[in-house]
């Protein structure tokens, strides 16, 4: 626990603030309608995520909110201040971590944080204390006086995040904060973001990682082609899907088609589709690279029946995985596409 005097010296406390966006539109000079009439609210102290594929309009929205881009029409208010009317006042209240890590490579970690603090009109002991505290919080104390260009990827991200926190922003904007991080650093950063949120900071995050939105955000808005498709809590959104995902890995029966593996797989997939399509519990079937993916109601109870149905010549099941609905399924349900094809393929193989 910090004493009262130290806390006062370390700068202002966080004042919970809201984000209100009404009918926001951004049309780029080339005619691209990047944001196409978005309306949403972030409550004070809430953690909201914008989930969507690349090019959905996430970065454009966050740049408008962070006062870096002007909206074509509509209004955006951060901490009850209109971003177009008084951007300078908004900048006092917000922190912004850009999509790519932007740290001054030729400055030390300490120098970089001090610079950002000075630009936020902090100084003297307040700033020194705050920089010290942040370096400690981010585990960068040992590297504080080394040039940040020598830092590892995870350290750079943490320094970048720290620089968005120097002035204790009331609202923190994070554009794809864990993009390019290794899994371990990502987990560590997630913990850090949760901790920041607990101090009262309103969080607005964009991501195309469904696990990230699922794990961090109290509320998720799914965005596609510049529009909010659906919003709600991750749990609430998933429960509306009402089906689990069953992924089957099939072994091509080469003997049937004279060694043509691709043709054999296609034949197996067609057979599976024909047979399982008749079952009431199966909502949809789509082929994957090495089998099929099914949406099945109450999958756990129906697995034996599924396997019995396809236990025929020409079909050999090599693996089966059941997953509850994910935010990707929510995205698929509302847009007919996956957020990222390669991500939607990730499942844990149980072996069969």
């Amino acid at each position, binding site marked *: *626990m*910090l004493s009262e005097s130290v*806390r*006062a010296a370390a*700068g*202002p*406390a*966080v*004042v*919970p603030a809201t984000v209100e966006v009404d009918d926001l539109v951004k049309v780029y000079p080339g005619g691209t309608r990047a944001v196409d009439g978005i309306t949403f609210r972030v409550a004070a*102290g809430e953690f909201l995520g914008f989930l969507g594929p690349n090019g959905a309009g996430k970065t454009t929205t966050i*740049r408008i909110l*962070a*006062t*870096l881009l*002007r909206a074509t029409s509509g209004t955006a208010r951060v901490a009850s201040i209109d971003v177009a009317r008084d951007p*300078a006042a908004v*900048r*006092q209240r*917000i*922190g*912004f971590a*850009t*999509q*790519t*890590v*932007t740290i*001054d490579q*030729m*400055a030390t970690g300490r*120098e970089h944080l001090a*610079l*950002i603090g*000075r*630009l*936020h*009109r*902090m100084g003297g002991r*307040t700033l020194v204390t705050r920089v010290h*505290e942040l370096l400690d*919080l981010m585990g960068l104390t040992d590297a504080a006086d080394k*040039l940040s260009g020598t830092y590892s990827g995870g350290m750079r991200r943490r320094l970048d995040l720290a*620089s968005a926190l120097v*002035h204790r922003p009331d609202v923190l904007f994070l554009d794809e904060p864990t993009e390019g991080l290794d899994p371990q650093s990502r987990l560590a950063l997630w913990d850090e973001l949760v901790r920041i949120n*607990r*101090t*009262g900071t309103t969080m607005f995050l964009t991501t195309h990682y469904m696990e990230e939105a699922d794990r961090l955000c109290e509320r998720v808005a799914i965005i596609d082609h510049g529009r909010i498709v659906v919003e709600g809590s991750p749990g609430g959104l998933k429960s509306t899907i009402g089906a689990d995902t069953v992924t089957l890995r099939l072994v091509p029966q080469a003997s049937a088609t004279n060694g043509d593996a691709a043709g054999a797989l296609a034949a197996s997939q067609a057979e599976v589709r024909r047979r399982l399509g008749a079952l009431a519990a199966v909502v949809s079937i789509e082929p994957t690279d090495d089998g099929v993916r099914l949406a099945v109601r109450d999958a756990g109870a129906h697995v034996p029946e599924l396997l019995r149905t396809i236990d025929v010549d020409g079909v050999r099941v090599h693996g089966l995985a059941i997953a509850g609905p994910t935010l990707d399924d929510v995205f698929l349900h509302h847009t007919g596409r996956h957020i990222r094809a390669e991500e939607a393929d990730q499942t844990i193989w149980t072996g069969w």
Partner: protein
Amino acid sequence: MSEAIGAARQNEPVRSAGPLGGLGRFVAETAYLGLRAWRRFYRVPANPLSIVLYPLIQLFVFSQLFKDIVQLPGFGASSGSYLAYLAPGQITFTVFFAVSWSGGNLLYDYRSGMLDKLRATPVGRYAILAGELVPLFLECMIMAAAILVLSLLLGARIETGLPGAVGVLLLAGAFGVAWAGTSFVPALLTKNEQATGTLSILFFPIAFMSTAFVPVALMPDWLQVINAWNPITYVIEAMRALMVSGFEWDAIGRAVVAIAAVGLVLHSITLLAFRRLTD
């Protein structure tokens, strides 16, 4: 770290403008960002090395090349020391070089996202630009100093002594800052480092058409007319006065006016281009 959620902010003044007014803030922010830009420059060992070596090599080569130029009619009696005569022209050339690579830094910040990071803070937009001029100012002064020192070592005299030498350095730095637009504008408009370098080098002929190497009397008529409008000539003539004759205030005054005029025009365009980039 323990913060009561929703606790009232106790020391609000930290976030207000504080005791500094608008201009004070601009100066302070320029200083912070200038220090950062200067660090970024000198921490790459090749940079400080090259801004000292480059002018030395250049002055040495040109001084050998033009050793006998003072024998030409038209140089007059005042040019007893050809080195003192040559040094101001060499200084403007080094300033041209420093300027030609200066716009690239702004582009680097733009591309890396640093510019966005800075703009998301309450820093004044133009302080970001002004901060980039700080290392340029220092580079120009250091390069000019290197030329003056070598000239002295090779036997030149500065008639006005140390105050005059400082005057030469200040003119060099100020001219570099004024001329920076020739690199910043192409940088901001093309957003391409190579284009920035090549476009700013287009301004080199203006230096060749100045009195950097030969006195105006030796130029063809048409070049003499151009020279009357060439700001570089006025800067060189003021430096030359400080080197070889004395504090000729009308020459110095003309140089200051020329630098101010160039700076006003180029920086107005730079500001417009910067607004366009950051809007």
